[in-house]
């Protein structure tokens, strides 16, 4: 049951079926970061996937750029309530990166340069749902937005798309990452408004 707000008319009635509840559309690309933007040169960049057996699959920038590249056009939704429609990215599908990885675990911790972490179920990274993106709107990804490369998992709130991605570690349980320990929802489905605990 809502309280009506005296005198509030509201501006937008987007009534857009593509806009999740409680979100508004923006043409900007706002930034949500917990600390300074890390400087990650592609010369020293490395991305790795670590499994429960200790096996490490890793790629340097050159190896990563030699993988099949996909173009992604998608809407993105930030927990701070902005959504942006029709963003264009280029990146490598997580299906490609996980092709040779053997794991029985169901959860993943994303690790970023700078120390940031966020947790995600393994299945949310598979079947064409997630990429490691290095280009936005035809330009190399700006460091503020996670460059040189960030995770892109557009079906969840955007904090699950870790900027400055460094590695993925398979986990037995769905342990909370950095934002999740600091009040954000463990899963983060924008269509269910899973913003906070």
């Amino acid at each position: 049951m809502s309280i009506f707000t005296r005198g509030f008319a509201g501006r937008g009635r987007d009534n857009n079926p593509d806009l999740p509840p409680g979100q508004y559309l923006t043409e900007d690309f706002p930034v949500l970061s917990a600390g300074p933007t890390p400087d990650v040169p592609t010369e020293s960049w490395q991305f790795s996937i670590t499994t429960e057996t200790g096996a490490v699959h890793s790629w340097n920038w050159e190896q990563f750029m030699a993988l099949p590249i996909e173009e992604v056009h998608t809407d993105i939704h930030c927990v701070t309530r902005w959504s942006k429609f029709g963003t264009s990215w280029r990146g490598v599908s997580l299906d490609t990166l996980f092709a040779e990885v053997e794991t029985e675990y169901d959860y993943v911790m994303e690790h970023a340069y700078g120390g940031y972490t966020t947790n995600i179920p393994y299945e949310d990274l598979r079947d064409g749902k997630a990429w490691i993106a290095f280009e936005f709107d035809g330009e190399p990804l700006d460091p503020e937005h996670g460059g040189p490369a960030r995770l892109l998992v557009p079906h969840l709130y955007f904090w699950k798309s870790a900027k400055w991605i460094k590695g993925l570690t398979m986990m037995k349980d769905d342990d909370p990452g950095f934002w999740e320990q600091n009040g954000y929802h463990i899963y983060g489905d924008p269509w269910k408004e899973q913003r906070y605990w």
Partner: protein
Amino acid sequence: MAGTVASVRPETPTGRSIMIDVPEWAGNIAGQHVDVRLTAPDGYQASRSYSLASSGPGHRLELAVDRLPDGEVSPYLVDDLQPGDMLELRGPLGGWFVWSPEQTQPVQLIAGGSGVVPFIAMLRSHETSGSTAPMQLLYSVRTPEDRFFATELDGLDAVTYRYTRRTPDGSPAGRITMDALAAATLPAPSAVFVCGPTGFVETVATWLVQLGHDQSAIKTERFGGK
């Protein structure tokens, strides 16, 4: 939960502070936010998150809101909201960009514009707790009239201003430089909080790292696009 506006007060030409009584409020730590939800007669709703200027146990919250020119919620809160009006609130939110009196290391707060609001809560919490940790504020703001909580801040020694458009004494105004930042802030190691528009925070945080602050000692909060 429901809140009733107790009072409103102009703070700047574009912003005001708002006191809200919330019987169900369970208290909050300095630096936390609250979600404010407005509902139009046809059921349309709009929510935004605002930093709290208040902290501690109490059931009276204080927000301070700057009117965004193309905003939807902030113009209503700044221009239309009156004492006695009711709002829906959710919070407190956020567990990262916070300061509590148990923290004993020196604290440098750096605000751009209305980014000062969470720091008002931290300075008040510091004051009322009798904390002996050094805490100081560097406040970058357009003109003297654009300062939020100006009277309260005038009573504090540990505040330095950087005026970007006009200074009170006619001395040159302008955006902060790396040298000025170094001169006006505590050296590393200290806990540093930076809050303001994205461009300001991005610039300042990068300089702080170059000035020797550990990346993990710098907490940031940003608003607006670029």
